């Protein structure tokens, strides 16, 4: 207790000394609550998935010693999953990166920060236009924002794209094309009141466990929730489902159109809702010519139950079951999806089609009835989508191709007119293709592990070691193995941060412990490189007055030398960057709450607007009268950013299209890849948690037992999986956690010693540029 008091007093004194700069002092929660001297609890969002659970982090003697679910956080109400509870353990792997390193003569050698920063700056000075930043949905909002300012506002170079491109780009383009602005209309409150849940290829029990419990545990209270699991694999989710509807990969396009066809032909069309809120467009190509309702009805006639069965394998009976849930006016239907729909060569189309189903049946914008896209990373929404860390984007829903948008950013950033380039930068796959070819000469990778997670690794990442690659990370990874410069980063509560989750909730946390060794914040790394470039005379690092691009001032107007670590670590630069970002959010009605308001809240869902009484009010459901302050007074539902400027959303006539690679004689199986409960993405954090690693120590391949029997394969048998791009030997797991459909196999991607992405296909959705990790063709060979 005494220690805590002393620390607390120090923090308070710091706060008083630097006033506005530091913002409020960290709020300790129940600091007298636990009978252990010196233990303090502070709030933070979880480090892992996009659910955004609130955690309380227990700190003692300057180290994280425990994590518990935050009862007061409305996202998770005190519950966490196995990963969340161990988020603190993940920080203490013995091999944390603690010193900057530069590759000299083939090996990474410890160097000083000054040398590492100078090396990077010299490289950028030499080749500023062929340098790219590849970032992450794990970037905090200030991290992504500082990179955008550095690259697009400083270097005038738009080559910034995140790993979120591989994760939710299809959901984004789905929303942009459907209602003109990113992020969902509904929220987690809908999970509490829906009575029918349709899972579109989504193993929620393992991927979003806390949200899954939020739905399933309602049954223990006597509530009825019907769950329909549309999938290509029986999973833990299927065990709780009332109906499992198995479909042939890519058949989802036909299923959604088939439901719409039945709604129109056999009843269930909500004419009133559609007339008030929708227009219809042709969807095969990009022109999107208007379509009459009758023409759309005719167009849907292809998708008879018989046709749908032929393409998707779903029987007319099961299709009618799905349609009947939408047709029933009493039902509150919630559609959920994640990578099954997004990692799809027609990812944008299937996103559009699921909105179609909800629009046509009027199951949208009502409590419990919505179509909700789940997200895999903690700030894919907050940073990648809202800050817009994408090749074509600028903060706050702006795009580089729009002159007005560029001018607005130049004004807000106080940089000379014309600094921001009009040509979009590379999207993720194109960025790695360019690096491979040498069109890009350098790349700074932050908070992600592309040499593990890009598809078709050999064709996209095999020449990274020949380029100038900087990697900022917390542990050695297969990507740091290829790096020229490795920078040790601060992780999670070792720094200040702000994340934005799947339901538009922005959550803030304060730094709680020091990073190990010489590890430093990613924001500092960016500012330090920018400052070095400024010193070297790079014109782009100057603002309109000739001052430094990252100019911060205290309340007395004195300049803050944020590039000096000693200054940076004592100042809440995060708060300043966040407040600099906040005005960007207002153009598209994505208004985020002020930093100090967030510091006192368990996150707030934007748009957050100030009431006449001065309170900051969040928005549970967007576009809905009575909830969203931007809805026009005469409307119940208002898609105020609708593409046609008519306050309506678009129903797109998107056809079925076969996937680019289909099993054949030589490669007879579908390969699907994905996550498991215990591990998060490339496993660099969760595998360093002994409890999680021991629970799931290595990769495996799941086969359908019937297929295995035909090949005389038992559990534990090593088999060779071969695709047109690569091959790998893996042990078989039959009738284990999941059972893939006959003719398909599943391999998790977390294990760096079994990089399944050597086999996956880099083909991507032409609209969202998101690759498809869920379907390609492989064959299985017995070894021995």
């Amino acid at each position: 207790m005494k220690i805590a008091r002393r620390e607390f007093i120090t923090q308070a004194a710091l706060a008083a000394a630097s006033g506005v700069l530091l913002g409020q002092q960290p709020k300790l929660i129940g600091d007298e609550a636990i009978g252990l001297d010196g233990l303090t609890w502070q709030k933070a969002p979880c480090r892992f998935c996009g659910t955004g659970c609130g955690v309380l982090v227990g700190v003692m003697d300057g180290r994280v010693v425990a994590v518990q679910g935050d009862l007061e956080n409305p996202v998770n109400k005190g519950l966490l999953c196995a990963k969340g509870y161990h988020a603190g353990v993940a920080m203490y792997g013995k091999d944390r990166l603690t010193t900057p390193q530069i590759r000299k003569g083939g090996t990474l050698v410890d160097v000083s920060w000054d040398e590492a920063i100078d090396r990077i700056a010299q490289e950028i000075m030499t080749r500023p236009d062929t340098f790219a930043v590849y970032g992450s949905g794990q970037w905090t909002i200030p991290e992504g924002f500082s990179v955008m300012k550095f690259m697009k506002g400083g270097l005038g170079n738009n080559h910034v794209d995140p790993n979120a491109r591989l994760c939710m780009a299809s959901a984004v383009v789905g929303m942009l094309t459907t209602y003109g602005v990113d992020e969902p209309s509904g929220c987690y409150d809908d999970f509490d009141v829906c009575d029918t849940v349709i899972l579109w290829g989504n193993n929620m029990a393992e991927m979003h466990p806390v949200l899954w419990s939020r739905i399933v545990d309602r049954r223990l209270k006597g509530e009825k929730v019907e769950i329909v699991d549309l999938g290509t694999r029986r999973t833990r989710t299927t065990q709780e489902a009332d109906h499992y509807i198995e479909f042939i990969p890519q058949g989802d396009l036909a299923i959604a159109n088939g439901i719409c066809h039945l709604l129109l032909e056999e009843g269930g069309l909500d004419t009133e809702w559609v007339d008030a809120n929708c227009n219809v467009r042709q969807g095969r190509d990009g022109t999107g010519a208007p379509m009459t309702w009758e023409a759309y009805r005719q167009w849907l006639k292809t998708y008879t139950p018989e046709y749908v069965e032929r393409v998707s394998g779903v029987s007319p009976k099961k299709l009618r079951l799905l349609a009947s849930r939408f047709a029933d006016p009493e039902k509150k239907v919630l559609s959920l999806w994640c990578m099954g729909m997004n990692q799809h060569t027609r990812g944008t189309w299937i996103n559009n089609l699921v909105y179609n189903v909800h629009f046509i049946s009027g199951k949208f914008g009502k409590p419990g009835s919505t179509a909700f896209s789940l997200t895999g990373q903690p700030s894919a929404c907050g940073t990648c989508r809202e800050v817009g860390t994408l090749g074509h984007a600028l903060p706050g829903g702006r795009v580089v191709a729009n002159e007005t948008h560029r001018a607005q950013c130049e004004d807000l950033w106080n940089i000379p007119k014309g600094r921001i380039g009009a040509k979009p930068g590379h999207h993720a796959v194109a960025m790695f293709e360019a690096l491979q070819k040498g069109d890009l000469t350098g790349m700074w990778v932050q908070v992600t592990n592309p040499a593990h997670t890009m598809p078709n690794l050999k064709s996209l990442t095999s020449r990274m070691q020949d380029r100038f690659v900087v990697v900022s990370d917390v542990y050695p990874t297969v990507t740091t193995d290829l790096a020229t410069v490795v920078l040790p980063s601060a992780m999670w509560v070792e720094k200040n941060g702000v994340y934005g989750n799947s339901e538009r909730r922005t959550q803030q946390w304060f730094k709680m412990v020091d990073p190990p060794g010489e590890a430093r914040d990613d924001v500092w790394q960016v500012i330090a490189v920018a400052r070095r470039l400024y010193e070297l005379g790079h014109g782009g690092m100057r603002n309109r007055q000739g001052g430094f691009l990252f100019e911060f001032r205290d309340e007395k107007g004195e300049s803050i030398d944020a590039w000096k670590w000693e200054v940076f670590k004592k100042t809440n630069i995060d708060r300043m960057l966040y407040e600099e970002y906040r005005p960007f959010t207002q153009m598209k009605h994505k208004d985020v709450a002020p930093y100090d308001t967030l510091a006192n809240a368990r996150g707030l869902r934007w748009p957050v607007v100030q009431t006449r009484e001065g309170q900051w009010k969040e928005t549970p459901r967007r576009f809905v009268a009575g909830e969203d302050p931007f809805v026009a007074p005469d409307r119940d539902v208002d898609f105020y950013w609708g593409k046609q400027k008519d306050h309506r959303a678009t129903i797109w006539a998107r056809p079925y299209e076969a996937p680019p690679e289909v099993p054949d004689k030589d490669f007879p199986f579908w390969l699907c890849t994905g996550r498991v409960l215990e591990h998060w993405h490339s496993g660099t954090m969760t595998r360093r948690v002994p409890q999680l690693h021991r629970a799931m120590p290595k990769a495996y391949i799941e086969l359908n037992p019937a297929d295995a029997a035909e090949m005389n394969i038992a559990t534990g048998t090593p088999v060779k999986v071969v695709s047109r791009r690569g091959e790998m030997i893996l042990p078989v797991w039959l009738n284990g956690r999941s059972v893939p459909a006959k003719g398909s196999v599943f391999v998790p991607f977390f294990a760096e010693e079994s990089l399944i992405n050597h086999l996956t296909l880099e083909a991507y959705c032409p609209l969202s540029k998101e690759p498809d990790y869920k379907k390609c063709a492989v064959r299985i060979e017995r070894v021995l």
Partner: protein
Amino acid sequence: MKKVASERIGWTGISCILLLCGLSIGILVGDAETSQVPPRDFNPPAPPVSRPEKGAGKVYESLTDRAFWGAPPPMPHRFTKEWDAENCLQCHANKNDIVKRQQAISPVPHAQLSQCQQCHVRAVDPDAPLFTLSNFVGLGYPGKGSRATPGAPPTIPHQTFMREHCLSCHGSSGEQRIETPHPYRSQCRQCHVSQIDREYSRFGLR
């Protein structure tokens, strides 16, 4: 495993001290109250056959199985299926019948939750090699509750959220327990009050 364990001691002696506190609380409660209460009148159920055997230092080993006090304990035994809330509840159900509840093996202390395996991962091979060693030092046991007078019922020194069924940890079975000397008394919290209750601070009552 062993190396990590010894490192933990090296990092801080706190865990050890806390463990001793934990043990002493058990002894204290036992000494203070067993002499005045009838002996238990039922046989505790046998542990699952596949439970890994643990020798001396059992409590310490258990703590290392769990990353810190408050982390969901990994499942210490094999189980039949990869999805088995129903199977879990065959042994761990929090039954309405008091005798059955007392006989259950570590009955679920949070019956409002049904997805056991989203938090409790398997630990069937606790000595399997680690991916990398860990420097994590976990929070130890919460220590003793306090007593108003010698012989008064000790207070509950930890939060009760997710720990709504005392016999899960203080019953006749289960890991890391401080065993109650009077399991036949079912209304624990009529005597043992919360020293700490986060729910109070939640509503601003503290």
